[in-house]
């Protein structure tokens, strides 16, 4: 597993992908940071919130090639016959992508350092926001890993993870739409004479259930300096779930190969 992790991590820097991702991340975050310098003060958590909003661009670049390239070049056969377990390989690839993401965030640590040089404020909100950003990144990389495993086309893999991550940014809007739709349908089909309050609460239930799945809402507390255990459990659950899905998908392919 460690060998796979090393190989995967190094492969980022043996191809332009890792460098481009790091450059893109540095340009976008650097532009945001430097545009605030002349104002005489800067809350770095604002930058972390901003960067968390562009993960839908960054994460697909990191994850698109994880499995799809192997499948395209046919080297995936080596994975199925390798001495390492398939689950270990999935975790190794995920950790490699996560490590690259963490390396990209060194840019933000540089910003933090510059801020300290300027005598700016670094506090619990700043650190909490960085933690929230990293947690979101870890979740989205797991989703991207799964997306990469579903197809041999890197572009499709990138588009798939791009779409899922982008949609997750707007869960709160969709949930409201779904609430209205639910209320509308229940009201229209109300043959049992259900009271409007119950229909409204059913609509709210749908909305709340959807909002419960919103990763951005989950880590919101970290962005305001509140530490809770629930977001960590939620994010770890999502990561485990998507890595397991990836593993099952690869396992299915292995049967197909053997057959």
């Amino acid at each position, binding site marked *: 597993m460690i060998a796979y992790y090393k190989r995967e991590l190094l492969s980022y820097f043996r*191809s332009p992908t890792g*460098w481009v991702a790091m450059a893109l991340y*540095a340009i976008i975050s*650097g532009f945001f940071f430097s545009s605030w310098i002349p104002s005489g003060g800067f809350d770095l958590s604002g930058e972390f919130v901003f960067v968390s909003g562009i993960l839908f661009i960054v994460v697909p670049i990191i994850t698109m090639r994880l499995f799809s390239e192997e499948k395209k070049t046919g080297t995936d056969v080596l994975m199925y016959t390798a001495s390492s377990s398939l689950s270990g390989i999935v975790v190794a690839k995920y950790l490699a992508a996560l490590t690259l993401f963490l390396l990209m965030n060194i840019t933000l640590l540089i910003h933090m350092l510059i801020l300290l040089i*300027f005598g700016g404020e670094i506090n619990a*909100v700043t650190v909490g926001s960085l933690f929230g950003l990293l947690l979101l990144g870890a979740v989205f990389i797991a989703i991207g890993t799964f997306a990469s495993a579903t197809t041999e086309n890197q572009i499709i893999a990138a588009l798939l993870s791009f779409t899922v991550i982008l949609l997750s940014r707007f869960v709160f809007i969709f949930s409201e739409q779904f609430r209205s739709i639910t209320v509308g349908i229940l009201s229209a089909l109300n043959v049992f004479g259900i009271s409007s309050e119950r229909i409204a609460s059913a609509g709210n239930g749908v909305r709340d259930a959807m909002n419960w799945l919103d990763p951005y809402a989950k880590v919101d507390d970290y962005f305001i300096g509140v530490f809770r255990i629930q977001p960590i*459990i939620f994010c770890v659950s999502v990561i485990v779930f998507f890595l397991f*899905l990836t593993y099952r998908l690869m396992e299915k392919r292995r049967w197909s190969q053997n057959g």
Partner: protein
Amino acid sequence: MNLLRKISEFLTLRKKKRFIKDQRSRSMHKYSILSIVVLFVILIIMNVLVDLLAENRFVDLTAQKMNSVSEETRKVLTDLPAEVQIIGLFERPDNLESSIYQLFVPLLDKYEELSKGKMSVSYYDPDAYPSIVFGLDPTGSTSFSKDTYVVKSGDRFVIIDPMDCLIFDSYEYSVNNRTVIVGNSVETVFTGSISYLVSGDLRRAYFTNGHSESGSSTIRDLLRYDGYECKDLYLEQQGGIPDDCEVIIINLPKSDFTENEAGLLSDFLSDGGKIIMVSDFSSYPTEMTNLFALAEKMRISITSDIIRENSPEFMLVADNNYYSKGIVSDAYSSLFGIEFVTVGESRSIQLGDYSESDATVRPILASSSNAVAHYVESNPTENLVEGTKYFALHSAIDGRTGRGEMIVLGTGFISADEYISSLGTNDDGIRFFRYLIHSLTGKTVQTPIPAKFLPSYDFTNMPSVSEQTIWTVMLIAIIPFVFISAGIIVYYRRKHK
């Protein structure tokens, strides 16, 4: 025949193999789906359990505990003697991100939870539910604005404009015309309003009017949170002081009181009334003969001398001797827990020599022993004797039906809106002024809930323009360029391998 048999055997074998493969594939497929479902269910259960077990467990890491409900509020909510409703006159906002309602909605939800059913929070858009307005005030005498909160208990209610709970950066507003929120007093206002509405010990404070008194809206709000009903007092028009009046506040009048008015106030003192009077140089050079004579009867002399602090350790600004830290006398300091308050441009309040009065006078707020007092229009001279000067004195006298008390302050720094707006409601001086009023009415109140301020993110070592340029170039050009170059080199090396 042999060939046909072989073909037949081959086909049978293939069929068997396919059957075995299909069977294995189906069972593996089932296993796969089942394992995913089981994992999904386990994860959901785990999350739900954690949500339930750790629902109210969190650590507020902010310095000012911006996201927590204070102990004072918890006490008020758990001991609520009557039911309270909080009604937002707007639709409950769903997306709180980047909205001022993120300061209100979660906090009020928390209030509701802590009250254990004694308080409800609801939201009604008056355009969609016009009857809500009638429900709030059946008399129809109050106009309720949309986008405000109404806190109601029984027949009484308080209207809260969310914007009034926000604290803006006055410098940014005045210089750059930008509204930058630097803090909020949401908890102060809501908990204070609830305390006011459910208070079984409501006091009445009257603010004199009609003499160009200074704005007192902030101190009125703060007194309301302490359980006071604040009313206007037009002495001349009303022709007397209402029976329910417990304290009269004369806050920086710019014109003198009439003899009749001063007489009413004097009678009030004789009947055991309490008066707190603030008079600085904002009224100067108007002669405040009648008003100051009232103080003289209480053996307090309000002079036209300004206090100049000469002790550097008490000066607030290095080159300005007229802004300083006032020292709270031991008696009040031990009572209020406040040792110093900010004062400025203060009249010197002296012990009067009105021989007919048997009032007892004691100091409240004094300068250091190195201060002088000189006539406001003259420059300080070397002949002035340094000594302790008083910013505020308290006088008590046994009257006809009770013990009248009067407090006179020579500085408006702790009572007037214009000063409070720059010093902030968390300033010790404002708290001190509230405590002075409580000491007169004998009211005991819990510790005021301070406004919460966001940390300042201003740079203490502001970079020069050239430094800014260097950092900007470094961040958005050089660092990305290094990465891109590395990527290009890697690409070409791989291409030419």
